[in-house]
């Protein structure tokens, strides 16, 4: 066994394990003999600011803002395309102009749909 090339490695492994576990074991023994645990509901409370926690952490947040964010994105992206569209308007072919109008109409359709659904009413 001692002739194995991994023997020294195994010895080092056991020594390293002992180096880590011995202090933990000593601390555990010390606590067992000299430090009686005294748990109580106040001590075990989760919140540690001196105040008692109220209610549940599992609450629902309204998704209204998320919808506003999506609609804002529509106008945001539209503006990015509208500006070069306006600058290059006089030089555009009929096909390009029609494609651009289709794009704007698609966005307007989305806005009309959201409006009809009552998303723009914050309540």
């Amino acid at each position: 066994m001692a002739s194995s090339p991994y023997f020294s490695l195994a010895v080092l492994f056991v020594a390293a394990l002992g180096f880590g576990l011995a202090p933990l074991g000593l601390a555990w023994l010390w606590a067992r003999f000299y430090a009686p645990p005294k748990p109580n509901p106040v001590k075990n409370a989760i919140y540690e600011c001196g105040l008692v926690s109220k209610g549940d952490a599992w609450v629902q947040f309204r998704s209204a803002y998320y919808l506003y964010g999506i609609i804002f994105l529509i106008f945001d992206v539209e503006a990015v395309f509208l500006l070069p569209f306006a600058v290059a308007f006089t030089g555009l072919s009929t096909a390009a102009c029609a494609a651009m109008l289709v794009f704007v109409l698609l966005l307007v359709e989305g806005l009309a749909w959201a409006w009809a659904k009552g998303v723009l009413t914050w309540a």
Partner: protein
Amino acid sequence: MDQNLKIELGKQGIFVTTIQELYNWGRRSSVWPMQFGLACCAIEMIATTMARYDMARFGAEVFRPSPRQADLMIVSGTVTKKMAPQVVRLYNQMAEPRYVIAMGACAISGGPFKQGYNVLKGIDRYIPVDVHIPGCPPRPEALLQAFITLQKKIDGQHLTGEDRPRFLNADAQGEFPVPEQGAHDLEPTSNRGVWPVEIHGTRTRN
């Protein structure tokens, strides 16, 4: 072990100690105070930790913002009746062994606000106080003096036997009841376990 023999051996270069001494030396040299201040005394407490007075010399520079990691509560200032339940609850949440320094006249007795309707007349009505510092506010040197007194107290504690401190005694109580706001005063008005004197009289004077 005989103290004189120990000193004699020390002169010969032989260091003799006991587990109890080593344990107490370790604990008193690394007291972690809780980081919370109540009133003007807290300013003196902050000054004590800074470079000029340098509380780090005594191993207590690590102020922890959580009661779980602290073992010394410095009640630095006026304890209002609104704040008292929170202070007692924080004390309950500290890990054992835990110590309390009542800093300044207010924390001891209510101080200049003793006649006030909303000031607790001393935090030792609810939690056991180890060291009291008089003063309004006490100077940083006074806080250091109190800290050294606490260290001496820790040094003298026994691990076993009848006179061992509360936290080593499995039968001693670990929970200190948190008072609640009553109609006119905190209820109960004191913890009879640490404040044996009965409190009665008009509500502004007690």
